[in-house]
């Protein structure tokens, strides 16, 4: 935690939460714009310059809608299920580091809400608790589509959570820590590669893990081509079918915030986080690099959605259990073996 007073931590946390919610709104704008370009359209243009006020208009519209609760629904669970998804999605931001400790107005300020020694595990845990929001929401709606969507989603998320978890073990072996801050600063060091000094990003030493992580991250956030839980053509809107107004918006917020968190998480673990030219001298540059990496990652998400058709459910499960799981375990064994050789601990 460093030596900063607790109120500064709270301010930093609050600012990060507000930034996250705002950036979530603009992620929807970004997605619509980029998707439109892929489809040879121009996207939203009417509300504000370049449609920049569109997310605000959407929020206002959603607030004015009727908050409908179906007769067959289990009211209490129906009320609270979206909150679980929303809270856990934001909660993951608690361990994402935006830099080290800086001096601001004569105070030392940590550019991260908290530095848990189980940071990476914490993000995985919030992801798994988020499934409760989906499955309780689907179950309590009293609707067939919702129930099917919820169960599919649960099966998908737990399967890909394994891959997500296993793909990180290689990094833990290399760094010997689960604290995201330490993992990130390890990547600020450089290694010599022939005549060049290159950054020690873990995507270089863990390329297979990175690929596995990206696939699992897309599936974990229920995004295309793995958006089976809300497959419109067969399940209407999946677990969200009976939700309306702001409760629907909470699910929506949760999904987009998870996307942003996953982008930040991937950037922190594999792409060096705030590492980049000038980042060690000026901390705003570090934040800029992290944001740029996350935006590139979000672009990749949208690119996938624009390009790939949806998987069939058996293909989805087959991919996770028959292809990715053996690969993930192979990656762990290989990483461990090379680490042993590197340490000179063989025989």
């Amino acid at each position, binding site marked *: 935690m460093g030596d900063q007073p607790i109120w500064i931590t709270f301010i930093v946390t609050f600012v990060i939460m507000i930034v996250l919610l705002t950036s979530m709104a603009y992620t929807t704008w970004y997605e619509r714009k980029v998707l439109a370009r892929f489809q040879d359209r121009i996207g939203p243009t009417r509300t504000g310059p370049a449609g920049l006020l569109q997310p605000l208009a959407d929020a206002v519209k959603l607030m004015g809608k009727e908050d409908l609760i179906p007769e067959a629904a289990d009211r209490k669970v129906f009320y609270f299920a979206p909150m679980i998804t929303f809270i856990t999605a934001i909660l993951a931001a608690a361990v994402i580091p935006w830099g080290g400790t800086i001096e601001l107005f004569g105070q030392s300020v940590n550019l991260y809400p908290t530095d848990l020694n189980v940071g990476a595990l914490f993000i995985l845990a919030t992801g798994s608790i988020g499934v409760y929001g989906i499955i309780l929401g689907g179950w309590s709606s009293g609707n067939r589509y919702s129930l099917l969507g919820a169960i599919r989603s649960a099966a998908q998320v*737990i399967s890909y959570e394994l891959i997500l978890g296993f793909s990180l073990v290689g990094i833990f072996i290399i760094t010997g820590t689960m604290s995201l801050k330490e993992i990130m600063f390890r990547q600020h060091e450089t290694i010599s590669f022939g005549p060049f000094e290159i950054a020690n990003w873990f995507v270089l030493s863990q390329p297979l893990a990175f690929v596995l992580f990206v696939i699992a991250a897309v599936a974990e956030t229920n995004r295309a081509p793995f958006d089976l839980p809300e497959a419109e053509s067969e399940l209407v809107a999946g677990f969200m079918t009976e939700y309306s107004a702001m409760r629907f918006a909470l699910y929506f917020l949760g999904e987009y915030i998870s996307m942003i968190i996953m982008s930040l998480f991937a950037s922190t673990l594999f792409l060096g986080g705030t590492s980049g030219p000038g980042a060690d001298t000026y901390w705003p540059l570090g934040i800029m690099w992290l944001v740029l990496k996350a935006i590139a990652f979000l672009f990749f998400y949208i690119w996938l959605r624009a390009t790939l058709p949806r998987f069939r459910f058996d293909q989805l499960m087959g991919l996770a259990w028959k292809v990715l799981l053996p690969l993930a375990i192979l990656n762990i064994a290989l990483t461990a073996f090379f680490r042993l050789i590197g340490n000179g601990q063989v025989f």
Partner: protein
Amino acid sequence: MEFLGSNWIVVVFMVVATFIMGFAMAGISSVVGPSRPNKAKSAPYESGIPDIKPVRPQFTARFYVIGMLFVIFDLEAAFMYPWAVNFDVLGMGGFVHMMIFVSLLLLSYVYAWKKGALEWV
């Protein structure tokens, strides 16, 4: 090892703050938005046709198999994390132990595969 140390206060703070935020947002919409429920509106959505019988949480047993497999492999992951973090300390011995553990699990994995537990019929 601090469990409820100062690091976790921030997490509690975030839970409370997001809870208030979510509650406020859902609250605003139920205050501002109209509320005119009628019979047709609050019936379960069924693409326009009336719902015949109430929904029972009934689904294919495949999901249970996936659930059980998940518990097994998630436990494996839970054992792997502390091993991975202390990898340099444990060295060769730890590596051999972990490989024996993983190969035992892989054996059951191959068995499950051969039995068809991973096929989605």
